[in-house]
């Protein structure tokens, strides 16, 4: 009996620990801002209409948790006034964002020696790129 009790307690202990770890790993995703004045909101039947931002929860005053995420369509679900509301991720700012592995702080000033000539012409006025770049 004692042996089975130990096994049982061990199983319960493991479940609690693993469950706790799982919970700890899952970070809470929150909506920080509705970026437009009119937001398209859909219900669970995916009937959608525009709602004024003022009719939605104010993320600066209350925590708006994302409780579900439809990865295929990029739709996020949150709850407001007891209702489930779906919004497209393009219309919100979230606390979780995609990050770049390398940031400008880690780019060395120059690896060129004093003898090297940059091949980039100085008279190129506009650099058409994705962003400003690090230099």
């Amino acid at each position, binding site marked *: 009996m004692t042996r089975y009790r130990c096994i049982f307690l061990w199983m319960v202990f493991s479940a609690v620990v693993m469950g706790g770890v799982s919970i700890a790993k899952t970070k809470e995703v929150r909506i920080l801002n509705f970026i437009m004045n009119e937001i398209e909101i859909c219900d669970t039947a995916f009937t959608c209409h525009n709602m004024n931002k003022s009719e939605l929860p104010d993320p600066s005053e209350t925590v708006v948790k994302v409780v579900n995420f439809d990865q295929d369509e990029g739709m996020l679900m949150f709850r407001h006034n007891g209702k489930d509301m779906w919004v497209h991720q393009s219309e919100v700012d979230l606390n979780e964002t995609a990050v*770049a592995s390398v940031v400008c702080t880690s780019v060395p000033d120059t690896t060129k*020696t004093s003898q090297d000539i940059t091949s980039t012409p100085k008279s190129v006025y*506009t650099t058409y790129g994705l962003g*400003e770049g690090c230099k």
Partner: protein
Amino acid sequence: MKNVLLIAIVLLMSSCTTQDISRSLRSLRGTALPAEGKFMESYVTACSNTESTPSPDTSDVKERINRPSLDYEIIENRALSLYLNGIKDSLLAQWPEKTDRNIQVFVNSARVYSAHSTPWDIVLSMGVIADADSEDELAFIIGHELSHILLGHHDINDYFRSQEDVVNIASKMAMVTAKMQDVEVVHNDDDTIDIEQQNSESTARKIQDAYKISLATNRICRDVLSSKMARENEEEADLLSTDLLVKAGYSAFGYGKALERLQTSMVFTREQLAQKKAEFQTVVTVLSSEEIPDSGSFQYLTYNFANELLTNLLQFLSIRHPEPKDRKLVLATYIKREYRQERRRKIQKTELKRIVHRGSSGRILNNYWTASEALRALDHGEIGKAEKLARKAVSSPTSNHAYTRAAFYAVRKAEGKEKKAIQNLNLIKSWQNASIQTILEASRSYRENGLFEKALVILQRAETDLGVKEPTYPELISVYKDAGNIDKALSVFAECSNCRESILRDQCKIAAGELAANKDSALPEAELIDDFRNIFL
């Protein structure tokens, strides 16, 4: 300071005219977002109404002069290249006009998340490939750069370059005129004439002012006006990329993670920010026509305040891209209006994972990243760690690649193992993918070890494989000089003296050393003739 502002306004109005640029009309509206409808359709309609073709006229296409991204190595990865060019082709197929330009997509060895385009090529950084987690994200980035090419945005560089030439000529004429007015003509008894330069203080000030004004005009044109146009062009590229993306079957929200990653990468150290600011500060200081007051005086406070204000203004105006969050808002508004269903399309990840993270292609990218980590360790002085990483980087299938071998070369040099360093250079098979810095460094290494023929062969590769010769002039002079071939050294020095870049000419002088110093010193009349020659030839 009042003089500075007055000069700036007059110069902006007289020298930096934008009347010839058709986009100035759109700039009055302040945004590229069309009031209704899709950007591509409104752009094509507008172009057909003004009787100009939407895509660059192929008869004006300048021949591709060199390999792109010469400051970095290019990643050799056939599977990745086919994959990225396949994305480019599917986007290009959505553009209504056919183009004869053979636009290619390359990946360079830069670690930071970035991309850029030339009139012929699109270059993504290794950082983009490492971080992107969907094909839609890559497609947005490729589409953005492709849009710059299709919309002819690179033509703006030619415009401002010609403006700079005009300003430089005007400035030189002012300087020569001042010199001409500052001469004394002496009639000799034998009916000959001597011209004596007086070099008066007033002439020196006039020459200095002419130089300052040209410097200020060109910097303001370059940093402020061109940036304004660049910001509008960036918005157009975002919108057109989205149109191409959707037509090609990707999600309209392809931009989402790209802009987020871009924003997170733009983190600078205090030193980097100070350096950026210092560049603008020198322009403002040069513009100041007064002596800088004593640091303890009240005038110094006002001078400092005005300097700071102008510097910040110049810096702010010169930012060429809208902030990522502003871009996100414009695109979110656009796709909500035009692509409400398409923004819900499923993001595609499978093919990207297969190409980037698995198989031979995945191993190649891993080795390149490891090589970049080796160089990073070297920057931090961790030589032992750098060697381990560099050794791993040259394992199959990248054992003969330019980047991985260049990284191991750098590690061996840091270890003081010159012979082993050179062995790494000897193992490079694909010099066409090397950076210009690697080529110059290789030449220098060969030269310092007396291997002059090898040095010359490597420098020749710069011309044949990379399509550039000018950056090799200083090293060529050094090789010929060290090899005892003085005639050749002087010949290259003479070629270098005609180069546009003053820093290059200075480097050639340093390389030539006493050979340059032995050139005849110019007589006053010869100097004036040279000045005229410099203006018109």
